[in-house]
């Protein structure tokens, strides 16, 4: 069965590129433009990996991450934070809240794909 990847970001341009990259690797891709939408989507069907932006209105990526980790049903879901918040403190915060990986924008698409494949053990 194909692995499910949930892309959470409110910027349509980056979403387009991410969806393309993930689908090219054979992953099933779902998109959520806000934190609330992401949690709803996970309720409906849990994902294997979440590509999570931080800077979103109302529910930001850090809070979404904390909530995902707070739910025992989603303990196997990998979380990769993809964010413009690039300081070391912010990286530590993300990892402390339960992210498995913290990637700063702009990023190399090749490296991201390799990392995702590594984390999901291939499609």
């Amino acid at each position, binding site marked *: 069965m194909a692995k499910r990847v949930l892309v959470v970001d409110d910027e349509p341009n980056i979403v387009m590129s991410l969806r393309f990259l993930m689908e090219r690797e054979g992953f099933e891709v779902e998109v959520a433009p806000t934190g609330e939408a992401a949690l709803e989507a996970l309720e409906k069907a849990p994902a294997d990996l979440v590509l999570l932006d931080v800077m979103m209105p109302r*529910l*930001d990526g*850090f*809070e979404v991450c*904390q*909530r995902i980790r707070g739910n025992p049903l989603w303990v196997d879901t990998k979380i990769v934070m993809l964010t413009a918040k*690039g*300081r*070391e*403190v*912010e990286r*530590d*915060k993300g990892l*402390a*809240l339960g992210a498995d990986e913290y990637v700063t924008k*702009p*990023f*190399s698409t090749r490296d991201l794909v390799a990392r995702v494949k590594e984390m999901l053990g291939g499609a």
Partner: protein
Amino acid sequence: MSARRRFWILFALLALVGAGLVIAGLWLTSSGLLPAGLVWPGALLVFLAAHAIVWLALERIWLGPSTALAREIQLLIHANAERPLTVPAGRSLGPLWDAVVALAEQWRRSRAEHELALVEALAKVRQQQSRLEAVLRDLSDGLIACSADRRILLVNDAAVRILGALPELGLDRPLDALIAREPISHAFELLRDRLREEGPATAGAREEFVCATAGGDRLLRCRMALILEADGDASGFVLDFADATERLGRIEEREARVVRQIEELRAPVAALRAAAEVLEHAGSSGAARRTALLEVLRHESVALSERLEALCRAAEGLARGDWPMADLLSVDLVRAVDRRLAETSGRPRLTAVGPGLWLHGDGYHLCAVLERLARCVHEATVQSELDLEARSHGRRVELDLVWQGDPVPVGTVEKWLEQLIDPATGHYRLRDVLARHGSELWSQPHARPGHALLRLPLPPPNRPQVGERQRRKALPPRPEFYDFELLARAAARAAPLLERPLGELSYVVFDTETTGLRPDAGDRIVQIAAVRIVNRRLLSGETFDALVDPRRPIPKAATRFHGITETMIHGRPPIEIVLPQFHRYVGDAVLVAHNADFDLAFFRREEERLGVCFDHPLLDTLLISAALHDHLPAHSLDDIAARFGIVLIDRHRALGDAIGTAQLFLRMLDLLEARGIRKLGEALALTGRIADLRRRRAQEFGNRRAASA
């Protein structure tokens, strides 16, 4: 019986005797018992005898006691106020006596009161003075006070810390040797002109400026204020300064870097944009061009990413700007927060866990933030005992607020950060304080099961982390760090050196120890020590003491004399380094030494080679002693000390001898002034004459010996 009555009785008696004698004489002569030639002379004799008796009585009743009283009063005034007035025999002075006794008593009492008041007032003044001294010592900014001609009157500890423990940084030294002259004199002139133009209302004005040290190696942020005299003119100024080199340098550097990085972004953005816009219309121009443009897009976007990273790094810390930050110890912070919590609401209580770590930040605001967060955690979790742990994480230091319970949701933490620190002081929220420290805040589970924490990462300290709290490196104590009498000297300093009064000059009294007595035969200096006298005060905090490597063996005889062994001078600097240091220490003071020619002979050998010149005026205490007591043959240091009753300590150690010579020199100054020798020129002329005399005597002695040989 009063004096008046006694006098009345005496004169009445005299009158009665006189009358009696006349009556008796008349009766005797008229009755023919005795011849007239016998009676009247006899009567006269008796009358005179009666006068003599009255005079004696007068002496005893009045004159004697009153003279005694006058003497007693004189003694009272001039000698001992405590001595009681002795009652002269014959207390017939009556009211006068009682009045004087009462006056004496009153006078004694008022003098005692006056002395007591004086002692109390002096004690108060001294207390104020020592408190002021403590405040000055403790200032974190450097403080230097100078006279109008820029001679130093006051130097506090912070000034020494900032400028370094240089020999030029001392009383009565020129400020120009330490700080660039032009900005200082410009600021002083500006303030003084303003004072003249606009009057005493501007007296409190300050002039702020940045200037460099004399060596040009450091920048100082300075503020100057005038020292005013009673007549409203400025006799000097006070300079308060701090080292701005690092801060100014850092800020400038950071800004320059950021500006450069921003400029470097323009190129890749331009290339990207151009390629993208061209690509829009490139469909018609062929696959090769399309491929090339796509390659440009890819390449330039990577370049842009890299430049962006560089900009972020350059801008790191720019947000902190000019906020005052210092190294803080975590346990101190915790203690302060816990105290605030205990004083206000009593809950929660904070305990420091683990060793203290140093971090860098704004103590006041961090305390306020931690206090707020502790209260918020207490409200949210009902826990009243919280721990605060400091951990090292790479370069940063993390403060963890720990409680028993669950982590706090991100949303709640964000709400906490929106709170104002202290509504009274305005607009700073907890979030702003965190931003200033380049920090974030989050909650996560603690390693200990059932516990959670709030983590606050903070910048690392400037100093290295050490296990123990380090005391600030103690500077050697400088008990005499000011002398405002030097203010009055500015005008006098304009006079030529030889005309200056001896008591006003600054002296450097020095002594050397050597390998032997013959500089021309290879003997060299092994130690130079000196002490400074300013305004007749020996500055115990400003001594010079250096061992010198003579680069030759030290004879045992010499070591027996001064105790300096070859092990002691091992690794010491040679004369090439020490003599110029000593030259700097002397500055423009007058040199004083005992048998100065001996020491100077060693200096002269090195002068040309090292480029230092000891052409200062020189006073030789040996020659002064010979001048003052030329009838005595003995003028060694021990002899002179015995004469003045001074105990020499550390004899034949250079510093001990220098201090001893300095103490003797101060006494000699008094004697010279008593002899009418008040100016430097006069003292030099005196010692010059004695030197000539001794030289001639030595020559004669030599000639005589040669003749008799």
